[in-house]
């Protein structure tokens, strides 16, 4: 499907999460020739979620992976084309936009950037060295390797709590380490975690170092308020801290805020005509699958208007 991909489209969508797929459903149904470029796996961040319980229409919840697959099927049904490639740059020409990728250049009348965010790292000693040796970024992948062992989760958002709940099915106990004294996660997620006896919390605490030779053995912690150091023996540590926007390829082309998010108006237009943005990549996005999908639909509607004007 990738080798013979055509090169010119009405709309190019960068990123295959809920924002991009939703945009693709709308542009394809408008019979605009549309290409979605994804560097890895279609589905986006939500695909890592074991169970999505806040996407309307799925009263019993749905796995994030399945939700992503359904969106992809729906978009493909209406003719959205897909290509697997990394976008390396965006160039503006007179009446077209050139998307540069590892599979060559593609051009379009309008571009919708929905490349979302990637997981943050702790950037502390031991993290890189022990990745795959107890440091993990995917609980649904790696939880079974830690049966009846003590595990730490670093972070306090919905993703972190979702990981802790999944890990609690396998680990002897799960210690959630959060740098503040309350969670950022939704209340109902917090209630679930507090009801699970294998989950404990360490508040106002940061991880300074991950120790271990062939595998993670111990974390060096610091209490933020008192500055007091401590250690915690664990067999693994799951990192679920902040997300950072995937906008490096846009620097100097599309105006970004200080943190690297794209600034848009309420029509999802960036400052550059014909360039739209949707989903987590936008400034102040609440980073929910449903808001991303809404953004995608909005961007698609106004991209169509832009093309037809």
């Amino acid at each position: 499907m990738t080798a013979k991909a055509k090169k010119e489209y009405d709309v190019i969508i960068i990123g295959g999460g809920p924002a991009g797929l939703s945009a693709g459903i709308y542009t394809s149904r408008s019979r605009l020739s549309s290409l979605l470029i994804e560097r890895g796996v279609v589905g986006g961040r939500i695909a890592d979620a074991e169970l999505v319980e806040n996407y309307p229409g799925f009263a019993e919840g749905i796995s994030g992976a399945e939700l992503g697959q359904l969106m992809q099927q729906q978009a493909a049904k209406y003719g959205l084309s897909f290509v697997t490639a990394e976008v390396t740059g965006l160039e503006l020409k007179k009446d077209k936009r050139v998307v540069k990728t590892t599979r060559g250049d593609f051009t379009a009348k309008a571009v919708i950037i929905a490349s979302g965010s990637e997981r943050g790292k702790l950037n502390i000693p031991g993290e890189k060295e022990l990745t795959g040796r107890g440091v993990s970024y995917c609980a649904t992948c790696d939880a079974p390797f830690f049966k009846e062992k003590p595990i730490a989760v670093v972070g306090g958002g919905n993703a972190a709590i979702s990981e802790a709940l999944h890990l609690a099915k396998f680990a002897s106990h799960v210690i959630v380490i959060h740098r503040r004294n309350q969670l950022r996660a939704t209340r109902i997620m917090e209630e679930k975690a507090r009801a699970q006896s294998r989950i404990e919390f360490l508040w106002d605490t940061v991880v300074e170092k991950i120790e271990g030779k062939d595998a993670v053995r111990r974390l060096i912690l610091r209490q933020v308020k008192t500055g007091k150091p401590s250690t915690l023996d664990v067999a693994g540590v799951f990192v679920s801290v902040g997300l950072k926007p995937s906008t490096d390829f846009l620097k100097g082309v599309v105006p970004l805020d200080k943190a690297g998010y794209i600034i848009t108006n309420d029509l999802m237009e960036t400052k550059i005509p014909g360039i739209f943005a949707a989903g987590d990549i936008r400034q102040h996005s609440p980073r929910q699958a449903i808001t991303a999908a809404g953004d995608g639909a909005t961007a698609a509607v106004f991209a169509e208007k832009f093309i037809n004007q």
Partner: protein
Amino acid sequence: MSKPIEVDDASFEQKVLQSKIPVLVDFWAPWCRPCLMAAPVLEELASDYASKITFAKLDVDQNAQVAAKYNIMAIPNLIIFKEGKPVSQIVGYKPKEELKKDLDAVL
């Protein structure tokens, strides 16, 4: 067309460690979504690198011995074996272009 072969605890020694050409072993499990997504990429690469590198899959859920021997604690996890020894390891999902660089480095 060359496709990835299945290896297990019993066949690992013969099919991987005694192979005359390098073998990339994909340590995976059915519950790991990124592993399932990586599979088609590895199938394409198996074709591209046919006769240069053998591509193999090992289900860590069914084959705990080999997984434990190589201390597998995160998947997807690709280890390239050359003359019976691990020479390169890639943890986590990586796009095709990046994997190619790792493969070329081994040849």
